[in-house]
């Protein structure tokens, strides 16, 4: 009986001690890392993620035992700002941001800086945010060189016009992508006369590039062999369509960027290829920075498109090669199964 009493006292003592220890331990332990994701991209480009979430970021966070929280602005600027408040309230440890309404990024940046939340931004630079993006210049050069080879084979490097569908609002990104395409084209066909290059504002939209290209073609009535380069697929396709609209006398071919209009069965017949970025799989790269932040050894800030924190390799593909690459939703599902890979490593033709 006395032994039992002693055991009981010991048990009570241990439980009492534990009762003190457990709360003390939990109070001093570091809070669980919380990854937050704020989406809201350009329709078609990561647009799917803007409405359905980012399964790759989610899978990566789950694998690491992190908490996960995501919001979408549905391409609406005021919602993007409200989302920043939610991110602060959620006490996120780090944020992945892809905002198709970059005009409110400075406002969002102020809120997040005040809350000391580090941000990784995709393809849209913002001072103080880790820039993760494509190697724009390499992407442009690769696409331009690929189109250059076609021009060399078909027109002996003598196109009548080279239409440059710019998106001047994109600033340095446009200069590197579209300018890079011109550089790449010239690397194969160096003797194309300067006067044959016609830059115009296409804004990365068919509705803008098509009428603008029509007007340029009308002002150059003798030009019939038309090459088109541009910021993205849509800007290029608009110009290719403009040539078809003006008559059967035109022979046009173009090479786009972003891969938005090259996959699937509804591809413009004159779009000969594109440079894929696999934007929907960027989160696989983001963990390079996120893991360092989680280990309290945040990398040195590199927030510019010229010197980014993480550089994504571009993947030039011809229209024929693109037919072998599944659509973005299938690609996301595949990558989410193993986020340690990248879409480039899985799908870019060797």
């Amino acid at each position: 009986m006395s032994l039992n009493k002693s055991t009981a006292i010991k048990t009570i003592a241990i439980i009492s001690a534990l009762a003190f220890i457990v709360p003390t331990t939990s109070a001093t332990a570091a809070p669980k890392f919380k990854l937050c994701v704020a989406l809201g991209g350009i329709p078609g480009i990561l647009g799917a993620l803007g409405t359905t979430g980012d399964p790759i970021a989610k899978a990566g966070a789950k694998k690491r035992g992190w908490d996960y929280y995501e919001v979408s602005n549905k391409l609406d600027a005021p919602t993007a700002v409200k989302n920043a408040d939610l991110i602060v309230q959620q006490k996120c440890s780090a944020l992945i941001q892809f905002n198709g309404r970059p005009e409110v990024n400075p406002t969002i940046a102020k809120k997040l800086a005040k809350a000391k939340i580090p941000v990784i931004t995709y393809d849209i630079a913002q001072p103080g945010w880790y820039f993760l993006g494509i190697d724009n210049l390499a992407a442009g050069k690769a696409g331009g060189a690929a189109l250059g080879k076609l021009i060399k084979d078909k027109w002996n490097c003598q196109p009548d016009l080279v239409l440059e569908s710019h998106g001047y609002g994109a600033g340095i990104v446009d200069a590197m992508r579209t300018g890079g395409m011109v550089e790449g084209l010239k690397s194969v066909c160096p003797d194309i006369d300067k006067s044959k290059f016609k830059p115009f504002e296409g804004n990365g939209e068919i509705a803008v590039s098509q009428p603008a290209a029509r007007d340029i073609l009308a002002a150059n009535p003798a030009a019939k062999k038309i090459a088109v380069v541009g910021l993205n697929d849509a800007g290029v396709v608009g110009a290719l369509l403009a040539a078809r609209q003006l008559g059967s006398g035109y022979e046009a071919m173009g090479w786009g960027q972003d891969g938005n209009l090259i996959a699937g069965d509804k591809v413009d017949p004159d779009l000969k290829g594109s440079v894929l970025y696999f934007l929907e799989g960027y989160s696989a790269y983001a963990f390079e920075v996120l893991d360092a932040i989680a280990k309290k050894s945040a990398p040195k800030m590199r927030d510019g498109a010229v010197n980014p924190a993480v550089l994504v390799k571009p993947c030039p593909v011809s229209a024929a090669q693109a037919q072998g690459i599944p659509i973005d939703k299938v690609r996301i599902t595949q990558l989410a199964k193993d986020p340690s890979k990248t879409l480039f490593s899985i799908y870019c033709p060797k």
Partner: protein
Amino acid sequence: MTHLSSSRFKVPSLRKSADSEYLATILILLVVWIFLVVISVINRSDFLSRATLSAVTFNMCIIGILAIGQGFVVISGGILDLSITVSMLITSFMIVVFYDLGWNTPLLIIVSLLCAGVFGLFNSILVVWLRINPLIVTLATGFAGGGLLLIVFDRGLVDPKSSIADFGTSYLFGLPTAWWPMALLTIGAHFFFKYSRVGRHFLAVGGNPLSSKAMGISLKRTRVATFVGSSIFGGIAGIVFAGFTPEIRPNAGEYYTLPVIAAVVLAGFSLAGGRGSFLALFISVGFLSTIPTALVFFGLQSIWQTFIQGFILIIAVSIDAYRIVKVRGR
């Protein structure tokens, strides 16, 4: 209640004065348009070419149809329909959806237009029964509709092998096939408002709703028809848009709002309602569609068109405001 007979609207002196005013507007616009063409030809003689004609007429197609719809709203006293480009996009997206379901072209066009009509009906319910200002209603439904399209569709891809895509690049009688619906609708609208009894009802409601009501015209029915009608015009523009644009994005309407309003105001449509000529509107659309092409011949980029259209809009609105003040001062 007294019902209106067509003869009661015939006020010869007033109609004659309106007709001469429309004629003056048409002549002024024609002179300005011809002046633009002449200086472009002096600058470069190859401006007068088949390629230029094609470029200008292609430029006219979508803006022209949307402008007729907008003119229909303005003339009927609905101020402006700021959601007309959403009607356009609803139709374009529905065309893609129904095409992917394997529907035949006539059926998918009819049902897509009906979808635009339902959107217009929603606008008219808010305007007529909830008595909200049409400008506020269409601004709100324009935003909400655009947002909904983004949530539901993200984007729509038109099959380049489809008959809709062929329509966007083909020619009929030497001009783009897509130009003809705009031309025919202009002629139709002109005759409808000038010679039909129902058309004059719309004009009367736009000019003086209280008198129209006193004369037995149903304001509610007219307003409902106005907004449903403008949405259907938006829908017709959506068919052309789907033919022109293989990738339809929910935000694409923003590129058309300003040129359409500029065309309507420049054509002399009074934002106060009750007056406007669809023939003048045709010339106004032609003039505004020639500007970007002419700019390129002058060595400028077509992005200058936005600045110039905005400038023209300021002048046109100022003239309209002056006219209203002058009429009220009488």
